C-alpha cells in the first residue's frame, strides 16, 4: 500500500492531488497516518505508533484505520495493488 507519489500533504492537513486537481482537508491523526504510510510502515507498525500516542484501543483504531484507508482508495489517493506490483 503506497500513497501516490505526487500527492502533497502539508503539516496543517491540506492534501492536494495534482493529477485530479482535488484538494482535501485531513485531521492531525490522519496526517500522521499518511506520513506513516509514506514512510512505508505496515499496518501493524502504524497501529503501534498510534496506540503508543493516543488514548484508544486496538479494536477501535483498526476499525477506523481500515475505514480511512477505504476512503483514501475511494479518492484514488493510494496506489492499487496492481500499480504497486508494476
Amino acid at each position, binding site marked *: 500500500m503506497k500513497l501516490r507519489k505526487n500527492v502533497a500533504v502539508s503539516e496543517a492537513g491540506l492534501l492536494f492531488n495534482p493529477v485530479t486537481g482535488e*484538494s482535501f*482537508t*485531513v*485531521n492531525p491523526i490522519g496526517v500522521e497516518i499518511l506520513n506513516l504510510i509514506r514512510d512505508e510502515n505496515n499496518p501493524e507498525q502504524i497501529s503501534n505508533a498510534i496506540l503508543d*500516542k*493516543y488514548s484508544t484501543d486496538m479494536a477501535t*483504531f483498526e476499525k*477506523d484505520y481500515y475505514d480511512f484507508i477505504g*476512503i483514501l482508495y*475511494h479518492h484514488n489517493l493510494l496506489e492499487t495493488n496492481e500499480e504497486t506490483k508494476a
Partner: protein
Amino acid sequence: MSKIRYERPVIKKLETGMPNKFGTRTEYVPMTHIDGVSVKSLIKEYGTPLFVISEKTIRNTIKKAKKAFDTRYPKVQFAWSYKTNYLNAVCSIFHQEGSWAEVVSGFEYDKAISLGVDGKKIIFNGPEKSEEDLTKAIMNDSLIHIDHLDELYTITELAEKLKLRPRVAIRVNMDTGVYPMWDRFGFNYENGQAWDAINKIMHSGKMELVGLHCHIGTFMLSPFAYGVAASKLAELALSVEQKFKHEIKYIDLGGGFASKNTLKGSYLPGTDTNPTFDDFAEAISTALLNSNFKQDKLPLLILETGRALIDEAGYLLGSVISNKRSSTGRRNTILDIGVNILFTSFWYDHKITPAQSFTQYSEDTCVYGPLCMNIDVIRESTSLPLLNRGDHVVIHSVGAYNMTQWMQFISLRPHVVLIDTDEKPHVIRLRETLDNMNSMELIPSHLGIRKSQIVNRKS
C-alpha cells in the same frame, strides 16, 4: 506520559463552485450543561436515552407568550394543550402559571381532573367524546367544544336528561388563505355550516353558547392567517349578538403556533425564520380590536398553543452506538435514540449537539436510531464532529409531542427528568420495565408457562 485524546482519522474533500449560503454551521460547541446541571452527571445517574425538561424554560416561555398578548389585548386566557405533553409535572407547571386545561379525549379529561383542575376551566375539544365523557363534562360545567352535529344532538339529549344547561362552543373551520385548509374538524364557515349549527344551538334553548373556537392548522408559519380567523370568528359572534341578542363570551383561536424547530426541507433554520409570539399576538389582537365589538363587550381571547410553549424546554440525551460507512461512502452514525421515542424527527431537522468537546473537524453524517427498521432515521444529513462510540449527544427542542406520541417498540421508554428552577433534577416519569409491560398482558391457561420452567430453561 498521558496520551492524547483519540479522534478517528478523517479526510474531507474540499468542494468548490457550490457554495451554500443556506448551509448551517457544524455544532462544535458542546452542550455540557442543561440549566446548570451537567449532562455527564445526568447520564451517569439515569443513563441514555434520557428526556430532560427545563422548568425554567417552560416558565420563561409562557411568561413571554402572555406578555406578547396581554400587552395587546385586554382579556387573554391560555389553556394548556394536554396532547402536546401531558406528563403530570409539565401540566402542573402550566396550571401554576395560570393556564386552563385543553383536552381532546376522556383520558385527558380525567387526567386534568386528577390534577385538580376546576371543571369550569377545562376545555373539551376533539371529535370523539363518549356519552360518559360528555355527562362528566356537563356535570362539571366544563366548556364543551362541539365538533359535529351528532355530538350536538347527543348533548341536547343529555342536557334534557340531566336537567342541566351545558356551556358549549362550536369548532369552526375556515379558509384563512393557507394550505392545507383544515376542514375535517368542526363546522365550515364559508358554506354556512357553522351558522346552521349556531342556529340549532340557540333555537334548542338547551345549551348556553358561550364561545366560538377554531384551530386553523399546525406549525403555522403565517401569523396573517390567525388574523383572518379572528376576523371571521368575530363576525360570527357579532351576528349571534345581532340575531339573538346573545353575547359570545370568548373566542378561542386554538393552537398551531410554530416553535423554533426547523421543518424538513427548510432552507433556513426555524430560529431565524419562524414567527414570534409577538407576531401572532399582533395579527390576532389587531383583528379583534378592529372588529365591531363594543369596547366593554370584547370577548375573552383563549389560546391553546402547545408546541411553541414546550418544544424548546425539552432535550433528549443519547449515546453513540457505532460509526459505519455506507456503500456510497457516506458516514453513518447510530445513536441509542430511535424514532419510536423521537417521533418529531419525521417532521423536523432536529439540532444535534455533542455533549463533550471536539476538534473543529467534522463529517457529513446520516444519524440513525437503534431500531431494526429502515425508517429509523434521526437526521438524513448533518455535519457532526468526529463522534466515537460511547460519546454523548444532546438533541434539542423535543418537548412537544414526543412524550405523548412515543411508542413502546422493541425497547422500553426512558426516564424523563425535570430540572427545577433551583437547578435540581427530579425524575417525573420512570423508565418502563418489563414488569410494567407484562402486567398488562394475560396468558390463557392452556398457553401458560410455569415459572419453574422458565428457571429451568435459563439454567
